[in-house]
């Protein structure tokens, strides 16, 4: 193989739960490192790199400084991969976008609010071009490995577009609706191997909506299973406020 790809890892607004070191990658970490050179990673090393082949970026953009930094990353990276719900769709952070921004600043920073400029929490793709996504909260490990090996091989990673229900059915799980729960799986993107329903939990939508979701249809499903209209939309907003707000208003 030619020179190893140079990799840089960045974090923006998020809990840093997605970054590689936080995941149980012990088994695969050495294999991963064998294929790339990590040239910048604030959490694990000092220094800055001027150029890299692949940038993995975690977190949403929520301050003017974030916007400036992401442009810089984009300029230096050949390939930019968004890691986790915050980077891909704004994530839980974006729930704040459903409230007036001044109220949010006051709530979080109190009287110091003028010291902390804040913007609505945005996915990376609303500011720069994102080449690939690794979804989930925290990001889905199996998907990270798939995207990673595809990039190392110079292949185009395939992003699933079908619903979590498909993976649930492949495993012959009992649908959690049968247990009186309410699940967002029908409109959420697969790729996590239906992680939550497989252990008897409902899907909260961390991997984002399927393309062209029928959200009115999903609202009807949630309401017919006992939620109020408002609860239904709140449930949908938890991880997907940016997309859901657009449809609802």
């Amino acid at each position: 193989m030619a020179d190893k790809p140079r990799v840089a890892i960045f974090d923006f607004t998020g809990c840093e739960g997605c970054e590689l070191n936080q995941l149980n990658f012990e088994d695969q970490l050495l294999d991963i490192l064998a294929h790339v050179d990590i040239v910048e990673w604030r959490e694990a090393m000092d220094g800055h790199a001027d150029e890299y082949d692949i940038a993995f970026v975690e977190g949403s953009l929520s301050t003017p400084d974030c916007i400036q930094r992401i442009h810089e990353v984009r300029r230096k990276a050949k390939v930019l991969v968004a890691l986790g719900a915050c980077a891909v769709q704004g994530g839980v952070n974006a729930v704040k976008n459903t409230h007036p921004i001044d109220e949010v600043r006051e709530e979080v920073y109190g009287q110091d609010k003028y010291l902390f400029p804040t913007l609505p929490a945005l996915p990376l793709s609303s500011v720069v071009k994102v080449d690939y996504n690794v979804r989930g909260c925290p990001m889905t490990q199996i998907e990270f490995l798939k995207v990673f090996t595809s990039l190392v091989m110079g292949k185009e990673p395939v992003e699933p577009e079908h619903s979590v229900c498909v993976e649930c059915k492949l495993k012959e799980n009992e649908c959690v609706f049968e247990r009186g729960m309410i699940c967002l799986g029908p409109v959420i993107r697969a790729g996590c191997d239906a992680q939550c329903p497989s252990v008897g939990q409902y899907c909260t939508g961390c991997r984002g909506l399927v393309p062209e979701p029928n959200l009115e249809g999903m609202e009807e499903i949630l309401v017919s299973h006992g939620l109020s209209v408002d609860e239904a939309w709140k449930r949908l907003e938890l991880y997907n406020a940016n997309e859901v707000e657009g449809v609802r208003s």
Partner: protein
Amino acid sequence: MVQLFLESDRVAELVAHLMKQKSVFAPHAKGRKSFAFEEVKDPSAAVLDYPRVMHSIRKFFFPPQETLMTFDLKENTCSVAETPAADAIFFGVHSYDLGAVHRLDYNFSEGNPEKNYIARRQGAVFVGVSYKPDEFHFSGSVGIDPYDTAGFDIFLTKLLDGYIVEALTPVGEGLLDGIELPAHEAGKPARGHFQQHIYLPQAKLGQVMDGSYQNEVWDDTAKKCVGCGTCNLVCPTCYCFTVEDEVNVQVTGGSRDRRWDGCMLRDFSAVAGGEVFRETLAERQRHRVFRKFKYISDETGQPWCVGCGRCTACCTAGISIVNIINRLVGDYEKVAVTPI
């Protein structure tokens, strides 16, 4: 046909007797109120009284996920996995699910025979059981009776206190050798009534479907449908799949895998270059229903839906294939009697 009698509390004994001859797969309770076909380990865990299993026995001949081949990127070689024959007894199968297997036999052997399916089907023995139709079954409307013994080696008909046992093939007779069962003298009880019906006489199926392409039912259904694909994945006569290559993290090799796929899913109808040839949920729903009641039916003269009711029972949006067909029939009748 000799009819024998099996008391309810001897079912486990019969299962144990069968297990001495071949592996036995039977319905088991799974989750809070569901049932799934699994290999029997404990004869008393096999369930005969159940409304429907989550996946039909299709999953044993056409598994949800399977590896077609593995490859080695260093040596540049590949090896195709051997597909073992089922060679087992499927105990407690409902008539519509065996009807679905017969339809898959057609789909997987016409044209390009599908060698994995055909290999897995070898040595499969079927023991059927009658059932009481629930609020979703409508097999009667597609010509499959709850007592339909076609294709079974042994059939059990439910009575109040036990089952009538009939061996229908030499294989079935052989399996019952060595278990003492008394003769059953009285006839079969009346079958349970269906609560669901499609009002589509088989002879008119073609005509009704021919005039249905532009029907408004497709758009109306699409307002509620969220395109989750569940109705495809639970259908015992759906046979679509997709194939993907997976490479290991060492980038030294990997596998070519296939899994069930379905026409309600957007990525199923997407082709290279990003074009999606059935863009809307209305087009996809029409395609699904036409696959069950028109396209293959035009070829074979038979509905390709077996009336199991799974797609309706599992649709969280409450979309009912029975209601869709009945609306098409209603509109056809209206059109047919309206003077031009």
